[in-house]
C-alpha cells in the first residue's frame, strides 16, 4: 500500500509549526498505524530528515501513551482503539492521511506529534487516591463485601488509560471524562467514601486550574474514548460535586 501523509512538524513549544507532506510505500495492511510511522521514520533518517517525534510505548492499547489526531479524529477512524491498535487495513491504498497532535491549551506540544499531558497527573495528585499507608496490617480483603454491580462499574470507570483523547476530541477541551472516571471509581467503592467530598472538590478545582474547558454534554468524548468510558461518569461526578459543594464544611 502507498499513502500520502500530511504530518504536523513543530520543533518545540515555541515553534509555530507547519504541515509537511511525505509519501510512504511498502506499507502492508496488517501493519499498525505506528508501524507505518516507523517505516516513514526509517525512510526519513535515510534521507537525512529528522524523524517524526511521537509518543508510543506498549503498542497494545493499554499504556495510553500514543496519541495523534488522524484525519480529524483522536486515535483515527475506528471505535474502541488507540492509535497503536489502528491497522492500515482500515485505510484504502493511495489514501491521503492527515496527522496532527492532540490539541488543547492544557496539552502543550513538546515536539511534532508529542504533547505534554502532565496536567492529568496533577489532577490525580489533587485527590485521585485513597489515603492508606502500606503497613501490611490492613483488614482482610474480603472483610467488606462489595456488590458485584458496583465492583464492575468501578472497574469499568477505572479502565481509563489517561490518553487524553477525550480532551482532544472535545470542542471545549474538557477533561471531565478523565476526571469523572477516577472520581466514579472511588465513589462506587466503600474504600473511597471517607475522602469522597474533598476528592471531587479538589480534582475538579485542579482540572479548572490546568485550563481545561467545561462540559457541554456533546458526548464526543465517549464516542472517541478508546476504552469506552461512559459519560454516565460525568453525571455521577456532577452529583458528587454538587452534594460535596453543599455539604462540605
Amino acid at each position, binding site marked *: 500500500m502507498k499513502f500520502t501523509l500530511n504530518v504536523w512538524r513543530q520543533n518545540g513549544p515555541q515553534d509555530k509549526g507547519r504541515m509537511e507532506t511525505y509519501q510512504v510505500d511498502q506499507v502492508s495492511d496488517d501493519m499498525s498505524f505506528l508501524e507505518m510511522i516507523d*517505516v516513514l521514520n526509517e525512510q526519513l533518517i535515510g534521507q537525512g530528515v529528522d524523524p517524526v517525534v511521537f509518543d508510543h510505548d506498549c503498542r497494545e492499547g493499554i499504556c495510553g501513551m500514543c496519541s495523534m489526531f488522524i484525519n480529524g479524529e483522536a486515535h483515527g477512524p475506528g471505535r474502541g482503539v488507540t492509535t497503536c491498535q489502528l491497522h492500515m487495513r482500515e485505510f484504502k491504498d493511495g489514501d491521503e492521511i492527515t496527522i496532527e497532535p492532540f490539541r488543547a491549551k492544557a496539552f502543550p506540544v513538546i515536539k511534532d506529534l508529542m504533547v505534554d499531558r502532565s496536567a492529568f497527573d496533577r489532577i490525580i495528585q489533587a485527590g485521585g487516591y485513597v489515603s492508606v499507608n502500606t503497613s*501490611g496490617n490492613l483488614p482482610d*480483603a474480603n472483610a467488606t463485601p462489595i456488590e458485584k454491580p458496583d465492583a*464492575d462499574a468501578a472497574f469499568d470507570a477505572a479502565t481509563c488509560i489517561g490518553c487524553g483523547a477525550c480532551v482532544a476530541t472535545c470542542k471545549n477541551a474538557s477533561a471531565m471524562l478523565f476526571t469523572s472516571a477516577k472520581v466514579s471509581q472511588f465513589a462506587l467503592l466503600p474504600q473511597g467514601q471517607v475522602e469522597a467530598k474533598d476528592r471531587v472538590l479538589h480534582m475538579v478545582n485542579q482540572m479548572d486550574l490546568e485550563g481545561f474547558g467545561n462540559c457541554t454534554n456533546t458526548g464526543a468524548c465517549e464516542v472517541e474514548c478508546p476504552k469506552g468510558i461512559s459519560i454516565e461518569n460525568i453525571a455521577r461526578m456532577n452529583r458528587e460535586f454538587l452534594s460535596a459543594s453543599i455539604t462540605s464544611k
Partner: protein
Amino acid sequence: MSTLDAHIPEGPIAEKWTKHKAKIPLVSPANKRQIDVIVVGTGLAGSSAAASLAELGYNVKAFCFQDSPRRAHSIAAQGGINAAKNYQNDGDSTFRLFYDTIKGGDYRSREANVHRLAEVSASIIDQCVAQGVPFARDYGGQLDNRSFGGVQVSRTFYAKGQTGQQLLLGAYSALSRQVAKGRVQMFARHEMVELVVVDGKARGIIARDLVTGELERHSAHAVLLCTGGYGNVFYLSTNAMGSNVTAAWKAHRKGAFMANPCFTQIHPTCIPVSGHFQSKLTLMSESLRNDGRIWVPKKKEDAEAIRAGKLQAVQLAEEDRDYYLERRYPAFGNLVPRDVASRAAKERCDAGFGVNKTGEAVYLDFASAIERYGKEAAHVQGLHHPSAEKVRELGEAIVESKYGNLFQMYEKITAQDPYKTPMMIYPAVHYTMGGIWVDYNLMTTVPGLFALGEANFSDHGANRLGASALMQGLADGYFVAPYTVGTYLADDIRTGKISTELPEFVDAETAARQRMEGFLNNAGNTPVEVFHRELGKIMWDQCGMARNKEGLEKAIQDIRSLRERFYKEVKVPGKMHEMNPELDKAGRVADFLELGELMCLDALSREESCGGHFREEYQSEEGEAVRRDDEFAYVAAWEFADQDPGKAKLHKEQLVFENVKLITRSYK
C-alpha cells in the same frame, strides 16, 4: 571464580522473615528526613517502593522514561496476581504457594526469598483492596479467583484481563499522593544513563531529560533499580517499545553482577508474527488457558491444507485434532507451565503441524468452553432443552464477561472473530527471570544499590509461573524494600547530603556525554533499528526456545561482529540538547548488544536444561528437559570485566534446598 553470600537469615524458613524484620536497625523519623533515595522506574515495583519509602519519611526522587509514571509496562499485565489467601478452600497455603513457585522455577530460585514472597502475598491483596483496586468479585460480593498454569489451586486474583493496569494505577495513586505531599519528586521523561559510585557505594545517577536533552546529576544515599526486564534484546517481544536494559547494564558495568541472564520466559500464548516491519508482539493472557484448548491437526495434510487456506479450523472433525498438551500432560493439560507449553508448541510446528501461513502457530479454541458455559447458564435459567444457538449465545456471553477485552484485542489485531473461529497463537519472549543479582535484602553487589521486581533475578528461578510477576513487583516494593533499604540506610544517618560536584559525578556525566556525542558524530548510514532487528534474530534463533553449544558459540561471534558494525555504521540524526528519540534508542541498543553476548555466554556455560533454558544436548527421550542438579544447582552471577561483556567472570551462589526436595518436574 568465587562464591557469593546471599545473607540469608538463620532459622526455620517460615520464621526467617519475621525474625529478620524484628532484628533490623531502624532509622528515626528525624533522620529519615535527612536521607535521599532514588527510585528508577515506576512500574509495580518502583511506584510501590517510591510511595512506601516516602510514606516512611525518606526524600524520594523517582524517575521514568514515559511521560507519566502510570504508563510503565506493568500496566500491560493481563491475567492476575497470586496470593495464598485460600479463599476457595481448595488446599492453598503459604507453603503451597512457596512450593509451587520453587517447582515452577525448576529449582533454580532461592528458597528464603520465595518463601518471603509467599508470606507477604496475602497482604498485597489487602493493601490493593484498601487502595480501591476493583478486583473481580462474585455475586456475594467476595473476591473471585481463577487458576493459572503449573498449579492445582485457584489463587489468582484478577480484574478482567487488565489486572496489571488496575494494580499499577493503585500503586500510581499511592505514588501520586506522596508527590502531592512533596515527599516524592517525580521526574517523568527522564532516563538513567549512568550509575554513580562513590567510595564503593551507589550514590546517585546521571539522568537525561528526554525533552531538553540535558544531562542531570542526582545524588542519594541509596539507589533502587526497578527497571523491569530485558526481553527487548530479542527485538520482538511482548515488552513495550521503550523497555530496556540500560539502567541495569550501566549498573552491571559499575560492579553489579548479572544473575542467570539466559533465563528468559517465552510465553506460549501470543499473537503470531505477521511481517518484517512488525514492531512488537502481543500477549494473549495465560488465563485463556483456563478455558481454551490448544490443538493442531492430527494429520500433516490437514495442516498443509489449512496453511494453504483450503481448509478452515472449524471444519476439522474432533477426531482429527491433536490436543497435544492434554495428550502429553494429562494431569495439568492445557495449564502446564509456560516453558513446557511453549516447547510443546514449537515441537508440533517444527514437525510440520503449524497452522498459519508461516507454519508457526497453533490453535487456542474456546468452542468447548462456550458450549459448557452455555449449558450451565441454560440450566440456571431453567431452560431444559435449549437449542444449540441458545447455548452458544449464553456461552459466548459468559466467555465475553471473563475475557472480553482479550477477545476484542485479538480481533483488532488479526481481524478474526475468536468467538467463531479458534485463535491462532505462538510463543513469544515475555519476561526475563534473570536479572541483577541481589541478596536477601534485595541489595546488589554494589552497596547501596538495590534491584526490585523483574529487574532482579531472585524469585522465579528458570521459569516464572503465571500471575507471579505482579506479586513479586508489589511484594518487593510495598513490603520488602521498605524494611531492607532502611537496614542499609541506618548506617548513613550522619553522612549528610551527597554533593553532585564530586569527581565521580563529573566523570560519570562526561562518560555519558562522550558516548552520546560519539553516536551523533558517527559517519554511518544505517538506522539503529536495523541493528536491533538483526540482534533480535540472532538471539531468537540461537538463544530462544532451544539452545545448543554450536549455535551459542556462533551467536557470540555474530553478536561481536554486529557490535563492531554498529559502532562503525550506525547513523543517529539530530542533536544532543534536544528531544532525540533516535539517540535514546541508540544508547539502549548499544547495551542490548552487550547483554546479548552475556546471555549467550551464560546459556553456553549452563550445561543442563531447566525451565525456560532448554539445551538440546540435555533432554530425555520424550524431549523433556534434563536438569543436572549435581553440577548446576547454582545461580550464575556474572561480573563485568576488562571492558568486554564476553570476558565476564562467573561467580556462583550455591542454592541450598532444605524445605523442598529436588525432583524432576513432572506435569504428566
